[in-house]
């Protein structure tokens, strides 16, 4: 009998304690960010999709060794280059990234010994069109320069 009433009393108390905590939380400052209107800056090491790094003259640093292509677990990088007449080094002519397959593991960036690719900070990439995720990184580099 005593146990019955004790349980009712402690049970009620536990509900009031809980209510007290939620009541206190109610007056705490908001911590959420209302996303499309406010955005956060990404951390320095944020791993977005890759992008080409340019040298002092504005050309891609890439030497078309193809190591990133080999390192990629999902075959999402395809690149091509050619030797210009009279030139010694290969020049990048095509660098395509299939972002639909990329899992942002960073193997390509690590495999590159020339520091020619880097992670971007882009994250507003939502689209309903699949073609929007086939990135032409050379074109993106040109656009960035402008």
């Amino acid at each position, binding site marked *: 009998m005593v146990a019955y009433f004790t349980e009712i009393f402690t049970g009620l108390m536990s509900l009031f304690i809980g209510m007290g905590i939620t009541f206190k939380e109610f007056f705490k400052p908001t911590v959420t960010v209302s996303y499309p209107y406010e955005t956060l800056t990404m951390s320095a*090491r944020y791993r977005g999709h890759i992008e080409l790094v340019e040298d002092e003259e504005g050309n891609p640093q890439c030497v078309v060794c193809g190591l990133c292509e080999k390192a990629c*677990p999902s075959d999402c990088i395809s690149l091509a280059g050619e030797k210009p007449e009279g030139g010694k080094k290969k020049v990048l002519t095509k660098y395509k990234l299939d972002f639909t397959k990329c899992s942002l*593991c960073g*193997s390509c960036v690590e495999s590159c010994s020339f520091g020619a690719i880097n992670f971007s900070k882009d994250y507003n990439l939502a689209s309903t069109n699949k073609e929007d995720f086939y990135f032409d990184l050379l074109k993106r580099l040109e656009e960035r320069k402008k």
Partner: protein
Amino acid sequence: MNSPILLQPDETFILNVGPQHPATHGVLRVKMEMHGEYIVNAETVIGYIHRMHEKMGELKTYPQFLMNLSRMDYLGALGYSHGHVLLVEKASGIVVPERAEYIRAIMVELNRIASHLFWFGAFVMDLGGFSPLMYALQDREHILDMLEAVTGSRLTYCYFRFGGLYNDVDDDFIAAARRFIPRMRKSMKKYHRLVTGNIIFRKRLEGIAPLSKEMCRKYGASSAVARGSGINFDVRKNEPYSVYPEFDFDVPVYHECDSLARYMVRMDEIEQSLRIVEQGLDKLPGGPIMPDKKPKLIKPPAGDYYQAVETARGSFGIRLVSDGGKNPYRLKLRSPTYSNMHLFDEACRGMMIMDALAFMGSLDLVIPEIDR
């Protein structure tokens, strides 16, 4: 007008829970044979998001498979990567610098706390309490921010490398982790006052879904499911790996065998993980995070290797059969929730459906990890 279907007193009906159902937290289907509100028989149907991770392990080279491990259990991804790198390092004889091992342990424990926090919130939400989820996510967000600043991603990390780490932690991370520990301890007190003491919560869990020791052993259950049934087994203690022997921590074990015991084990585990993080930060040695001679081509000698680790969801085992090539010959992933989930069919017989769903929450299922 249709007339209502009247069931005979001993007639049962089939209730299909899932594959898309909020209570299953993923693409799990449970076929329940019901007698009124009581479960006569239940059958879990899995495989809706099977992605052939084991086969991918055979087709990819060792470094290429690194990122797959974090796609298994999206809440506690680092624990799984830890098992994989430890296994390949053991197989190919790579020595890991001490600093890297300490950072790994700190990261895995932080990830474990994040995973348990999410489970805590989702579990209470299963039982009808919404606000604890918001508080838990707020605390979890601090961990994710810390991990993001170091690893570059928030959920599907690819941070561990054979021989060490992707990059080093900075002073900001250490300061943030130190700030987080007292904050989390304060939050734990809040959670216990808000949820553990709550009479409705306790009535829903106390004495519900008793799992005997024998049953846990039979099904190969681990983590809080086994430890809530009085089995003192934690891979970190029983088969020590990495730098865990250096840390002073306890394995919470409860003997009540009910859903509340499983809840209590996980809540205590958060506190123990905080202790490990604290000690790890104190003891963190200096030095490199990768061996001097970075392993270029990973080709473990032919043989059979096994490594078990304690992840947030239980003991995760990974077996590698190598033929000396650059791809594994066979890679077997033993996922803990796969075993934990199969208890459900037997244990939920005769239970009321609401209790069974609470019981399912206490198992802490992550479906991509079952299906892998």
